[in-house]
C-alpha cells in the first residue's frame, strides 16, 4: 500500500505501471480499478485558469491511511495506490489517483469508489480557484457525481 501527498505533477498512468511492476502479487489478483481526477478548465459555469490545493499536514496523510485501511478490510483489497496533489495545480494536471488490486471486479470497483467518496467527504484538502474574475475558495464538492 502506498499513500502519498505530492507537491509536484505526476503522471497517474506511469505511476500505476511503476507501482504494479514492483508488486509481487502476480497471479493473486484478477481485477485492478483506477480512478484519476484531473483539473478542469471550468467549474460551476466559470472558466478556471489555475488552482491551489491546501492541506492539513499529518492529518491529511492520517485520514487517507485510515480510509485505505477500512477499504482494504471491507473490500478485501490486495493492494492499493493513492496519490494526491497539493500546491499549485495547472489545467490538465492529475490531482488524485486511486488504484486498487483485488481478486474480482466487484471488490475492485466498489473499493475504489469507496476510497474516492470517503476522501471527498473527509480528507482535509481545500481548493482555491483562479478565474477571470479573481480567486475564490471552492465551497463544496460535487456529491456522488
Amino acid at each position, binding site marked *: 500500500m502506498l499513500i502519498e501527498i505530492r507537491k509536484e505533477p505526476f503522471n497517474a498512468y506511469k505511476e500505476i505501471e511503476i507501482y504494479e511492476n514492483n508488486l509481487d502479487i502476480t497471479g493473486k489478483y484478477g481485477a485492478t480499478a483506477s480512478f484519476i481526477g484531473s483539473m478542469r478548465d471550468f467549474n460551476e459555469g466559470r472558466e478556471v485558469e489555475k488552482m491551489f490545493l*491546501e492541506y492539513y499536514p499529518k492529518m491529511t496523510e*492520517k485520514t487517507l491511511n485510515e480510509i485505505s485501511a477500512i477499504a482494504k478490510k471491507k473490500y478485501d483489497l490486495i493492494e492499493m495506490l493513492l496519490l494526491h496533489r497539493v500546491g499549485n495545480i495547472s489545467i490538465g494536471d492529475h490531482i488524485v489517483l486511486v488504484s486498487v488490486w483485488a481478486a474480482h471486479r466487484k471488490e475492485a470497483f466498489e473499493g475504489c469508489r469507496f476510497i*474516492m467518496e470517503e*476522501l471527498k467527504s473527509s480528507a482535509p*484538502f481545500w481548493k482555491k480557484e483562479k478565474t477571470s474574475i479573481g480567486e475564490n*475558495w471552492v465551497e463544496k464538492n460535487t456529491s456522488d457525481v
Partner: protein
Amino acid sequence: MKVTIKYFASLRELMGESSRIINIDEKSSVDDIWQLLKDSKQVEFDNVMATVNMEYVKNNKVLKEGDEVAFFPPVTGG
C-alpha cells in the same frame, strides 16, 4: 490551560492567521472556544468543521491541556 489553534483555507484568510496558542478555561468545549475566537475577530462563518488532535469531533467535545484544535471549512479535495 493552553491549546493550539489552527485555521485552514478560507477560514485562515478570514481570521488573518494560521495558528496560535491560547489560554482557555478548564472544561472548555470546542464550541466554547470557537464562539470566543470568532467573536474576537467579529467574523461569521457557517459550516465550520472542527478536529481535535487530528480527529473529527462534535462541538461539545471538552478540551484538555495541549490539545491541537483545528477549524476549517468543508473539505473539497479529490
